[in-house]
């Protein structure tokens, strides 16, 4: 039943839209704002998934196969992907759900991302990607190198995340942040009015990621979790070849993200077609190209690698997590911090007009 993919994707899109969950922002703001408000909930999602996946594996429900580690492809691809998501203003998943909110710039980024993922996976550069990703080293996972059970890194990581969560909660306790006036009452107030906190977003993301493992193996017998890049490339390839075998559970998942986010935005009065200026469109297109190339080389995006492979404690997951983060920091400096500093000297300040 590939339709479960559509439902899970819709739930994911809904959750991400309501919680304004943005992995790009989580990485970027660690550096730019010294803020871990979205970063720690993201780590929490990894920990929840790691515990769930280790338990399901122990129970024999699923049998995850961590990716083999190709250091150069993963590091290079991760860095590129990090740069791309700053240019595009959102990671692959973020771009899907913002497209569902009606952002034309995100549609542009999405189309170029999917196109270049297809070029790298099924198109003219497929051989290059395969060659780069076949230069692997012996061990795939941390537990393999250490010769321990997967529970050892799972428990250590979960304890670490637990400590970080407590610290972050204490830090923000008692701080009053102004909210929009309520427009709905009852259950609608919670479902399609107030924004969900990053914690709600992170926790639900972790559980949806576990559900993906179970639903995918039930639907197709395959072992895998959430993934965005491969299905995006499959959509482009399907559209240009008509090969219906490409339309699988994972394709339904990414289409579901668009639908779920659209429903969430529409119900909350947050959908509108929004057209950016030419510069933003160009940057989104460039970002999409770099994202597609980077994700194909690294073997995943902020979901496939930074959320899913990390929960298996594979080297591909954690090394690309670090590479993507470094890529976002470098690009944030280049595209956001540096122009600001230059502007402070030369550019006229943002146009301000006295209000009546």
């Amino acid at each position, binding site marked *: 039943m590939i339709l479960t993919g559509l439902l899970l994707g819709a739930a994911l899109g809904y959750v991400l839209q309501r919680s304004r969950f943005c992995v790009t922002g989580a990485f970027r703001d660690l550096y730019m704002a010294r803020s871990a408000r979205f970063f720690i909930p993201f780590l929490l999602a990894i920990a929840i998934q790691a515990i769930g996946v280790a338990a399901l594996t122990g129970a024999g429900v699923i049998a995850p196969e961590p990716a083999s580690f190709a250091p150069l492809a993963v590091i290079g691809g991760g860095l590129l992907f990090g740069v791309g998501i700053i240019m595009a203003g959102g990671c692959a998943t973020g771009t899907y759900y913002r497209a569902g909110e009606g952002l034309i710039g995100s549609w542009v980024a999405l189309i170029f991302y999917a196109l270049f993922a297809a070029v790298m996976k099924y198109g003219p550069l497929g051989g290059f990607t395969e060659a780069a990703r076949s230069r692997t080293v012996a061990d795939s996972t941390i537990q393999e190198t250490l010769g321990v059970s997967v529970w050892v890194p799972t428990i250590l990581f979960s304890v670490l995340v637990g400590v970080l969560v407590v610290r972050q909660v204490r830090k923000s306790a008692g701080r009053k942040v102004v909210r929009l006036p309520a427009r709905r009452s009852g259950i609608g107030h919670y479902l399609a009015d107030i924004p969900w906190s990053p914690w709600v977003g992170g926790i639900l993301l972790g559980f949806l990621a576990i559900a993906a493992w179970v639903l995918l193996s039930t639907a197709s017998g395959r072992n895998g979790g959430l993934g965005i890049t491969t299905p995006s490339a499959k959509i482009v390839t399907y559209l240009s070849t008509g090969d219906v075998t490409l339309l699988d559970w994972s394709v339904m998942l990414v289409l579901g993200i668009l639908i779920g986010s659209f429903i969430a935005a529409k119900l909350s009065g*947050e959908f509108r077609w929004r*057209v950016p200026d030419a510069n933003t469109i160009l940057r989104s297109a460039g970002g999409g190209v770099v994202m597609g190339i980077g994700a194909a080389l690294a073997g995943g995006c902020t979901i496939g690698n930074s959320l899913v492979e990390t929960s298996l404690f594979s080297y591909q997951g954690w090394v690309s997590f670090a590479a993507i983060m470094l890529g976002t920091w470098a690009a944030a400096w280049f595209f956001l911090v540096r122009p600001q500093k230059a502007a402070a000297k030369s550019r006229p300040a943002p146009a301000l007009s006295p*209000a009546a």
Partner: protein
Amino acid sequence: MPAYTLETNGAVCPFPLIDAKSAMEQLNSGDDLIIGFDCTQATDSLPQWAADDGHEVVAFDRVGDAGWTITVRKGA
């Protein structure tokens, strides 16, 4: 007290926040900055920034679908 408007419609995050911070630097404490924006994530990041930096939010509301306005009074 003087009030100034900053229109950021069409700008995607994090630009509304970056522009708001830079605009705020030009104001005196007690001045109001009225920011119009249509990037959904800024409904989170702008009030959060005000709370973190000690500015007072005197108004925060929707303007039609996917449009918002927030008035931030510069703190001491």
